[in-house]
């Protein structure tokens, strides 16, 4: 019985979201607000159960169980002590609730932005530039004509696209020509990528319509 009630709720929410396609209406508004409200709780619980709790309380758990809160401190090793850095940063963040010291939250942001910069450099170099260059270093002429042809096109597309992103020179003359070829390849790529994605998106809609017909309406008959 309880399953049936929830099935109806699920179907109701599905239709409410679809109704948005016609125009904004009370049903969509309700579904949207329920969604945003419950998502806040859901991700809060998720983040705490799967990430924060094991990462921050996990290392203290055993010590806390054996020694209790007051006596566990002398037993902390580097694993425990180092966690006080993120705890400190988190407290800095929460200090935004107290306006006179709210500026401390910038320390935490500064750390994360520094992280972004560090990860940005290493990720871009090791994850993208070098592998992509490695993959572009291809033999232009091989015994197989088709492979040669494909390789040439890949290389021309890569280099011309790079020329399109030249900022410090006006796009005139040879640079202009290359960057024009580049943008042509970019557009072909975008078209292909657009066409390629449609199928996956339609699959999702098929799933929802199937749910409505067979699981929800199907449960009536």
């Amino acid at each position, binding site marked *: 019985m309880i399953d049936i009630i929830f099935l109806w709720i699920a179907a109701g929410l599905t239709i409410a979201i679809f109704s948005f396609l016609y125009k*904004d209406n009370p049903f969509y508004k309700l579904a949207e607000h329920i969604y945003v409200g419950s998502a806040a709780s859901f991700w809060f619980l998720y983040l705490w159960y799967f990430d924060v709790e094991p990462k921050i309380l996990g290392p203290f758990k055993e010590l806390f169980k054996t020694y209790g809160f007051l006596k566990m401190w002398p037993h902390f090793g580097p694993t425990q002590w180092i966690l006080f850095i993120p705890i400190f940063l988190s407290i800095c963040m929460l200090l935004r609730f107290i306006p006179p010291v709210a500026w401390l939250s910038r320390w935490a942001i500064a750390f994360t932005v520094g992280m*972004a910069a560090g990860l940005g450099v290493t990720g871009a*170099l090791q994850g993208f530039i*070098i592998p992509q260059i490695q993959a572009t*270093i291809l*033999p232009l*002429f091989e015994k197989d004509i088709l492979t040669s042809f494909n390789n040439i096109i890949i290389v021309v597309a890569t280099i011309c696209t790079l020329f399109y992103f030249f900022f*410090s020179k006006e796009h005139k003359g040879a640079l202009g020509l290359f960057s024009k070829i580049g943008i042509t390849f970019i557009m072909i790529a975008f078209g292909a*990528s*657009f066409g390629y994605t449609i199928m996956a998106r339609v699959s999702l809609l098929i799933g929802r319509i199937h749910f409505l017909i067979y699981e929800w309406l199907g449960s009536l008959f």
Partner: protein
Amino acid sequence: MKTILIFYFLIPPLPPSNVKANDYPNDAGGKIEIKWELSPMDSTIDCYIIFRQEKIKDKWSLPETLSILKRGTNYFLDSNCKDKIEYRYFIRAVKGEEFSDSEFSNVAISSGQWFHKKRTSVLILLIVITLFLFYFLKRAKKEELFIRKIPGLDAIDEAVGRSTEMGRPLLFILGLGTIAEIPTIAGLSILKRVAKKAGEYETDIIVPCFDPLVYVAASETVKEGFIEAGRPDLFKEGNVFFLSYDQFGYAAGVDGIMLRERPGAIFLQGYFYAESLILAETGNSIGAIQISGTTAVTQLPFFIAATDYTLIGEEMYAASAYLTREPLSLATIKGEDYVKILLIIIITLGLILETIASFTGKDIFHFLKNFFEVI
């Protein structure tokens, strides 16, 4: 025939040979790799068992089973070692009830390395790029640097102006990126410019956020933009808010804001996933001017299709330099361009070498390609 078969099943299999143990390179320690030559009867055995002994007070401990490996395997990575302890290994070939053991391997000690040799090419390229950038940073003080037109960025002021004329607020969407991702920071620097313009035009700007840290940073940024415009009084705390940590909850919420607040201009700047088109199409349906920008290559086609102006990939990163015209930022853009030329030269060189390699069949010409082989 029968006797031969029985004999065949009863004799113990020949053991593997030449067992070599070595510290696993380019790691933090704690790993030893073991290689061996297969038993000559590899195709008939059931499996190999790999044993390890460690030296405790000058005595070898009892062998400990590490793993059972299927036939045909000649490599094992023992990632459960302690640094500075001596280990040796042997491999047992097993066939039914019968088995035979290999000789002991050499004694090996695991250790951590202070330099990752396989990343040499990364380091060299990083140094070269940094040098280029510093060179132009130094030159920046002396000369005016040129930057080509980026239509999407020129449209920002126009969009803010038109939205103000219509008496509608602005909507700025930073996408799903966290603050630990560069595109988000690029988006924030565009946000600052838009917020400043909003201050000058006395228009409201709404910024719903996905990531809580981005929310905090965005609210500082908008406040700063209004201060720069000389109108800190116009900054409304509640207009920059955290909306949802759920991808489609965020999309649903932003769609709702679009339909109810009717912004005149929408900026989509940051890192986006599948929700990009949900946002851009709804924005289009309310008739707002939309300026999008992302480095998410898979989402760019949708922005191109559904928004009025799109900053494609790198253009978005160039935005902060373009908007502020700050000499130091422009210098890095110039440095970037020269690195591009360098990379094109490297690729061209590599193409020639690989073509020669494919015709002569000599491996030596692969050196440039191999140099860029990294992990």
